[in-house]
Every structure is written in structure tokens, then in C-alpha cells.
């Protein structure tokens, strides 16, 4: 019908509004689809990848070596698949820095691999690298070569192994840093050329439905003396990827739908208010004989336009940017192919929800407007039922103050939109800033809270006081050395590990309790680290149960206090009590802590952790997390600017009649701004405060939910500079929007305004 020609004209006249509404819708749909369908897609991909590559269910070592016959017997008896996993670590120098490459060969039964880029190995002089390490060292071209132990390999591509998706050097490590450690795959023949004494091994096992895990582990322990056992659910190299997906699913199923709801709600409110302003024309069209339903449908298209435009653009962007978004989400783990799951319900929800919400809002608003008497509508006198309760007849206030009070409290839905507009964008910005600040604060203090040691040597063999040591006696008895007995246990309450640390001298570790006192380790009490307390939900006086991974023996201890340590799940006790609990001779130890580098033979050490390397690891991961937050921050800033612009546009449009009337009466622009527009300044701080509260709360919730994912608890912090930065973004967006839209008012044709001005 002819009336429909208004669509294009209306679009041109209200371009800024439609653009803002469309962009907001687009961002909401983009975020929802990218996270929700992206996570679904990745989960599907990973399930297939794990199944194809036969991901282990657990890994273990035994004191008695398993022969091929033993493995075959165990496989038959317990319906399991077992394969020895071998590797050799080599230090490689690429000019800038030295890094460790873990050379592996193709596994046939457990923990296979897939080539993610390039091609598979064809000769003994070829090598595949994990993607992040290849990227970190610029070894991504086929022409790249790498020299390992005097042998030159051609890099022919990148590969991924399911048990190294979070590429930790040691399963006890917290952070994977591709700059310093990576995995490599060579042919069986090339691997066979590695000297025997450089090769280390462990076993990986896959259970079947018929397997009784407890029986298998018991048999393993009794027949082969299990010395180490780690379930895949407790293995950070494997768990981190699934944890990332799990936590992202929380965002995708809770936070993002809420975000969409708020954005759509705000846009719908603004749309509804715009329709109310059309009451005169609606009245005229009704008078001309248009039926209510037809008019409501006609106006509803004005809502469909930004909804459809934003939704479709959001879908296109989500599909186009899927690789970037997936890289942002899975920044810690090895990169996965960007897969977006085409879940029809979610796509339909993302596209149809905003369109339907805007359509319905306009449709219902239109019907509501048309409940008024047509004559009143034409005269612009509808909504007479609006009762103004804030008469303030006896209040000794100036008309300006009364006007401001009525503007804010008399038009509450408009005020809600103003606050909501700031809150939606502000929340995302504060959330990102708080996350970044918390991580910065974490980096700066966490390493110190662990302790003052500089070196931590994990010994290859158990040592005992007063017994001939396999390591140099001078080291064990040095004043600069503290002996520790450490072992990992399985937490009884969840698939997680806790480190039991038996230590008598607290010279190098922090033993300050969160209550303020220091823990007394000598009396044999058990103290838990603050991260452990959060992870297992325990406090002083509570019981904590844990299981020895090899013997499956369960222990229950009483927690005497909580030690400040937000980066490790540790149970502290005396060395004597730890030895007793583990059934080891009194005086046992397997770790040396020192503030100086010790000259110990490499063969005597299974792993060395330096405080600097720990700090570097934390810093490297924090930088990656900050990059991710930076991208979300940018999105938040765009949302903030657009919502504020949309909201100011609404304020300007709705107040145009009063503004132009005051101009006619002789008010200057500045005076008009002071009376009418500046009134909303009071709501900006409200929006800012609410954004700060919501953003910080969301950040705290995020860190609490992701203790196991980050393998650490990060205390929520927001620095004053960040608060100022956030306030500036909001204030600048608001001021610029006012300035840009203020010109609209300046240019308002007073003569035309007069025709539209109605009480």
C-alpha cells in the first residue's frame, strides 16, 4: 500500500536511530551466536577428535616395568587399552631464546594425533610441531628447519595431540607457555635414534564400558606397584580444554542471553517510545479509515527493520569472524579449527528473538496508543490518563528543580532506559577492566605469596635424612636448602588433585594464615592454601578427604587453618606427618627448595621450577587473557557508545517540543540545556555506579567459577585508574552524543516546531 512508502523515508529521517538499534542488535546476536554455537561446535569437534585419536582415560607409572605380555594380560582381564608413551626433551636455540621441545613418536593405540596444518611425516628428517610453539618461533612455513641434538629436521606442518591440548611441560605446572615449551612429532625411525637414557616413559590407558576401574587400579598397584596415577579429568593438559568449554557454556547460557535480553529490552523500549510520538499521525490514519490491526502491522515493520538488519548482520559477522572469536576463547589451549554449530534452535532464537521482540513491542504499543480517542490523538492530547503525582505545590523549589524532578521520576521508563543504556555497555567495560586489573594484581603479588624460594628441585628419587643420599650431601644439608616431602593426591570431592606438602622450615614458603597469624607446621596440623579452600569449599575446622592415586587409600584430615596462597591447591603439614601419612620412613623428602641455584646432576632431578620461570609463565598467560579481555572490552566500548547515543537521541527527540518552545520564548541554547537536557546528567552517575557494581560482581563470579579452569584463584581487583578510564568512556560518549545531537536541536526550525508543539 502507498503507506508503505513511508518506510524508506522514515529510514532516511531516522537513520542514526536505526543504525544504533541495528548495531546493538548485531552485537548482541554476534556475541550470542559466536559463543553459544561456537562452543557447541567446538564440543562436537573435540568429541570427534578425542574419539578418533583415542584420548587416554588416565596415565600412570609403575615401579615394576610392564612387559608387552603384562600389557596384553591386563587388556584382556580388564577390557582396557594400554600403551607406553615415550618422549625425550631437548633444548633448542632459535637465536633469540632457548626453549624445550618434547620429541614424541606416533602412538598407535592411545593418544594419536591429527595434522592440523601442512602434511604428515614422510621421512626421518621431517618434524611436526604443535601450533602455538610453531607460531611462537616462526616455524610455520614448510621451508622452516630446526636443529635438535645436531640433527636438522624440516618442519612440514603442525599437529595436535589430544593429551597435550593444553601444552604443559609437567602436569603439575599451572601455565603453558608456547615460547618455552612445545611438543614435536618425529617418525618412529627418527625417535629410535634418540639415546635410550634421554627417553622417559609412562603408560596411558583407555577404559571400556566393561572396565571396573577400581579393580584395574588395585591390580596395577598390587602387581606392578603404581607410583603415579593421573586421571584425565584431573590432568590439566586435558582438562583445561573441556573446562574452557564448560565455563564458556556458562557465559553462553547465562550471561550472554541476559545481555541480549537487556539490549533487546532497551531497544524495544526506545522503539515503543518512538511509536508513542507518532500518535498524531496514527490518529489521522485512523480517522482516514485505516483499521487498527492494519496500522499496528504497518508500524510493526519499523521495528522489524533494525531487528532484521541487526540479526542478519550478526549472523554474517559471527560466521565471518568465527576463527578470531574461537582464537580469543581458546587462547590458552592449542588452536582448534573454528567450528560453528548450526543449531537451528539457537540460530532461530538469535535471528527471530530481536525481530519478534521489536515487532511485538511496536505492535502492542501501537494498539495501546490506539485505545485513545482519535480526536485526542489528532490534537496531540492523548494519554490524558497519565496522572502526574509530583505536583509539589507547596515545595519551595524553583520551577527548574521541579521540572528536573518530574523529568526523572515522572517519566520513570525514560529514566530506566537512560540508566539501562549506560549499564549495558558499562557492565562489559567494567567486567573487562576488573578482570585485567585482577590479573595484573595477581601477577604482582602471587609469586611472592607462594614463598621466597628461588629454586625448587624435584628429585628423581626419594631421599631420607640420615641415610646415604643419592644426591650430594652438601646440598641436602646446606643452610640455603629446605627439604620438602611433596606428593599429589586425588581430591575425594571432585576430579582434581591436591598437593600434600610436608615441610618443617617455613623459611621459603609463606605460612601466613588468612586470619593473620602464621601456621605452625611443626605440630603436625594440616593447613590448606586459600585457593584449595575455595576449590574444595572448606575452612578451618572442616574435614578434607583425599585419595592416594596409586594405592587408592583414602585419608581424612581436619583443616587447622587457611594459608594465603591463591595460586596452588596445597595441603601443608610437617614432614614427619606427611611421611607417616604416605607410609614412608620418617625424614623422607623429594623436593629441595633454595634461594640459590644448586649444582645438582641433571639425572638426580625430575624437574626444576624457578620462581622467575613461574613469574614468566603467569605473566605470559595473563598477557593472553588480557588480549582476550581487550577484545571484549572493545566490544563493550562500542556497545556503551551506541547505547548512550541511542539513549541521548531518545531524550533529544522526546524533549524537542519543550526545547523549541523555550527557544521561542527567548531562552539561549545553554540555558535550555541546563533546564531540559542536563537533567539527565544526574542519571549518568547512577548508571556508572550500577555498572561498576555489576561489572565487579560478574568479575568475581567469573574468577570463582573458573578456579579449576585457571588452576588458580584470582582475587577481584579494580584500580582507581580503571574506574576513571571507565567513567571517562561513559562521560565522553555521553558528552559527544549530546554535542552531536545537540546540533539537531540548534538546527530545529522554530516555525515547524510550533506546528508540532502540543501540550
Amino acid at each position, binding site marked *: 500500500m502507498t503507506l508503505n512508502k513511508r518506510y524508506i523515508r522514515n529510514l532516511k529521517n531516522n537513520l542514526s536511530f536505526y543504525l544504533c538499534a541495528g548495531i546493538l542488535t548485531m552485537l548482541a546476536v554476534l556475541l550470542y551466536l559466536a559463543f553459544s554455537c561456537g562452543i557447541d561446535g567446538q564440543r562436537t569437534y573435540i568429541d570427534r577428535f578425542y574419539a578418533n585419536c583415542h584420548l587416554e582415560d588416565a596415565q600412570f607409572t609403575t615401579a615394576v616395568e610392564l612387559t608387552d605380555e603384562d600389557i596384553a594380560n591386563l587388556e584382556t582381564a580388564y577390557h582396557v587399552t594400554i600403551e607406553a608413551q615415550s618422549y625425550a626433551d631437548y633444548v633448542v636455540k632459535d637465536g633469540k631464546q632457548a626453549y624445550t621441545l618434547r620429541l614424541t613418536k606416533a602412538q598407535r593405540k592411545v593418544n594419536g594425533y591429527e595434522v592440523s596444518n601442512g602434511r604428515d611425516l614422510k621421512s626421518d628428517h621431517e618434524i611436526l610441531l604443535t601450533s602455538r610453539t610453531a607460531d611462537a618461533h616462526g616455524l610455520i612455513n614448510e621451508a622452516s628447519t630446526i636443529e635438535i641434538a645436531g640433527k636438522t629436521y624440516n618442519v612440514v606442518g603442525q599437529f595436535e595431540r589430544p593429551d597435550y591440548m593444553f601444552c604443559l611441560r609437567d602436569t603439575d605446572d599451572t601455565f603453558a607457555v608456547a615460547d618455552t615449551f612445545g611438543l614435536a612429532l618425529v617418525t618412529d625411525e627418527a625417535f629410535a635414534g634418540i639415546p635410550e637414557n634421554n627417553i622417559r616413559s609412562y603408560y596411558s590407558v583407555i577404559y571400556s564400558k566393561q572396565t571396573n576401574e577400581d579393580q584395574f587400579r588395585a591390580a596395577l598397584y598390587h602387581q606392578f606397584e603404581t607410583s603415579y596415577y593421573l586421571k584425565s579429568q584431573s590432568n590439566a593438559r586435558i582438562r583445561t580444554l573441556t573446562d574452557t568449554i564448560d565455563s564458556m557454556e556458562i557465559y553462553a547460557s547465562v550471561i550472554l542471553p541476559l545481555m541480549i535480553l537487556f539490549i533487546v529490552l532497551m531497544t524495544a523500549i526506545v522503539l515503543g517510545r518512538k511509536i508513542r510520538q507518532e500518535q498524531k499521525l496514527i490518529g489521522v490514519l485512523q480517522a482516514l479509515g485505516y483499521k487498527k490491526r492494519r496500522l499496528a502491522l504497518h508500524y510493526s515493520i519499523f521495528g522489524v527493520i533494525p531487528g532484521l538488519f541487526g540479526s542478519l548482520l550478526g549472523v554474517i559477522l559471527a560466521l565471518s569472524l568465527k576463527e578470531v572469536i574461537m582464537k580469543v576463547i581458546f587462547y590458552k589451549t592449542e588452536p582448534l579449527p573454528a567450528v560453528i554449530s548450526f543449531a537451528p534452535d539457537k540460530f532461530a532464537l538469535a535471528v527471530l528473538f530481536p525481530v519478534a521482540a521489536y515487532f511485538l513491542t511496536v505492535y502492542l504499543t501501537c494498539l495501546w496508543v490506539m485505545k485513545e480517542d482519535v480526536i485526542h490523538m489528532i490534537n496531540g492530547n492523548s494519554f490524558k490518563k497519565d496522572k502526574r503525582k509530583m505536583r509539589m505545590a507547596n515545595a519551595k523549589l524553583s*520551577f527548574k528543580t521541579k521540572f528536573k524532578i*518530574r523529568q526523572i521520576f515522572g517519566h520513570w521508563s525514560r529514566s530506566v532506559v537512560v540508566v539501562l543504556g549506560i549499564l549495558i555497555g558499562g557492565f562489559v567495560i567494567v567486567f573487562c577492566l576488573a578482570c585485567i586489573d585482577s590479573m595484573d594484581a595477581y601477577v604482582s603479588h602471587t609469586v611472592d605469596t607462594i614463598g621466597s624460594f628461588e629454586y625448587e628441585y624435584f628429585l628423581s628419587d626419594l631421599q631420607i635424612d640420615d641415610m646415604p643420599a643419592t644426591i650430594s650431601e652438601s646440598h641436602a644439608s646446606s643452610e640455603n636448602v629446605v627439604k620438602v616431602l611433596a606428593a599429589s593426591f586425588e581430591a575425594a570431592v571432585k576430579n582434581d588433585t591436591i598437593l600434600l606438602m610436608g615441610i618443617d622450615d617455613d623459611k621459603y614458603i609463606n605460612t601466613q594464615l588468612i586470619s593473620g597469624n602464621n601456621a605452625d607446621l611443626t605440630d603436625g596440623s594440616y593447613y590448606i592454601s586459600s585457593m584449595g579452600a575455595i576449590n574444595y569449599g572448606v575452612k578451618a575446622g572442616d574435614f578434607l578427604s583425599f585419595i592416594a592415586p596409586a594405592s587408592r587409600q583414602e585419608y581424612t584430615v581436619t583443616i587447622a587453618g587457611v594459608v594465603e596462597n591463591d595460586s596452588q591447591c596445597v595441603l601443608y603439614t610437617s614432614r614427619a606427618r606427611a611421611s607417616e601419612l604416605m607410609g614412608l620412613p620418617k625424614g623422607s623428602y623429594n623436593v629441595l627448595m633454595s634461594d640459590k641455584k644448586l649444582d645438582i646432576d641433571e639425572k638426580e632431578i625430575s624437574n626444576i621450577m624457578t620462581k622467575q620461570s613461574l613469574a614468566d609463565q603467569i605473566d605470559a598467560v595473563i598477557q593472553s587473557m588480557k588480549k582476550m579481555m581487550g577484545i571484549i572490552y572493545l566490544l563493550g566500548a562500542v556497545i556503551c557508545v551506541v547505547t548512550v547515543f541511542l539513549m541521548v537521541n531518545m531524550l533529544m527527540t522526546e524533549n524537542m517540543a*519543550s526545547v523549541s518552545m523555550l*527557544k*521561542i520564548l*527567548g531562552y539561549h541554547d545553554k540555558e535550555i540545556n541546563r533546564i531540559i537536557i542536563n537533567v539527565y546528567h544526574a542519571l549518568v552517575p547512577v548508571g556508572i555506579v550500577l555498572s561498576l557494581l555489576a561489572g565487579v560482581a560478574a568479575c568475581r563470579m567469573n574468577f570463582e567459577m573458573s578456579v579449576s579452569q585457571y588452576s588458580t584463584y584470582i582475587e577481584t581487583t579494580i584500580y582507581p585508574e580503571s574506574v576513571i578510564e571507565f567513567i571517562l568512556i561513559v562521560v565522553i560518549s555521553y558528552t559527544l552524543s549530546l554535542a552531536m545531537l545537540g546540533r539537531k536541536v540548534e538546527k530545529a526550525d*522554530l516555525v515547524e516546531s510550533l506546528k508540532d508543539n502540543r*501540550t
Partner: protein
Amino acid sequence: MFIEMINARKRYGKGETAVHALDGVELHIEEGKIAVILGASGSGKSTMLNMLGGLDSLDEGTLIIDGREVSRLKAKELTDYRREEVGFVFQSYNLIPDLTVKENIEVVADIAKKPLDIDEVMKAMAIEKYKNRFPKELSGGQQQRAAIARALIKNPKLLLCDELTGALDSKSARAVLSFIQKVNVQFGTTILMITHNEAIAGMADRIIRIRDGQVYANLENHQKKNVESLEL
């Protein structure tokens, strides 16, 4: 002469659709008089009022009001002119909906150099008892009286009324016109009313007729009537 409009021209639109709203208008009105501009819709009377009120500017010609050449004023000076010299009353009242009657009047009193006493003006306009009501709570006549009170509070030298009684019944119209006449007598305000209602011309000192953007009659009314005797 209080108002002098010499060879005033104003055109809206371009090319074939151009409309010459004012086409060489000559107008002279003495101070303290009531002048009524009569003309059909589209004759150019509202454009003339807008020019006199400093809401729009001439393309050509000169407009002098009380010795000030309004046609040369810039935007900021026009605002000051509206603020200090002119009072407006519109057919559709144009009161600010979020302000009560008294507060609507205060809006102008607040920026006037020598505002009159608000209570006195409200009393004169017989709207005292409605002072705490919002515009929507008043009848059309009451709203128009409030609009007149708002225009008068600054004690303007020139009061411009656009179809003052256009939206009112005859009883309310008569009451409003009585107030206008009272204002003219009491404050000596020059009043210019545009209307297409011939009967209203009876109360004017000067009757100006306009057609197609040109003044074709500008006559002194020697048979000026009291509002009560107008046949509205």
C-alpha cells in the same frame, strides 16, 4: 511608527514549487494599538507573524520594530529580541506539559528583565485557582489564558497572537479576547492578532488584510467595538 515592514519578501521552496509567502509586504502599525491581520489559509499571515516575532528571517526587505532593525539581527540577537520585546500566544497554547500553570509563567518571568508580579498577572487572567494544575488538567480556554499570562509576564512591548481563539468555543473565545483588550488598556501593549475570523477585527484599532503574500488593505478601524458586542 512602532512596526515598520518595508518591501518584505519571503519565499519557501525552490523552482516550480516555490511559494512566495510574503511578496513585497508594506506594513506600518502604531505603538499601543491592537492590529488584526485577516486572511485566508496560505495568505501569508502566519509567515508575517513569524517575521515579527523573530522566529524566521526575511529574504529581502526591512523590518523595524520599536526602532530596532530586526531584519538585520543575528540568531543570538534574535533570541534576545524574543526574550525582551515579544510575547507569543498560539492557537495550540504550547504550554510546557511537565510544568504547572504557575511554573509555565515562571519560565518566562525567570529570564525577563522586569517581570510583572506573577500572582497579579494570574489574577488578571483569572487563572489563580488553577495555578498548581498541569496544562492537561485545564480546558482550552483556561490553557489559553495561561498562555496569555505567560506571554504578558515579561511585560512585552509587542504581543503576537496566532489564531488566538481558533480552538475555543465562543464563550471561552470572548473571555480570552476580553483579557487581550484589558491587557492593551492596562499595560499599553501593542497587540497583533492574526485570524481568519472577521468578527474579531471589530475589536482592532487597525485592520490589515493580506492575500497571496501581499497586504491589500491596511485601514484604521473607526468603529472599534467592545469585545462583548462582537458576534463571535
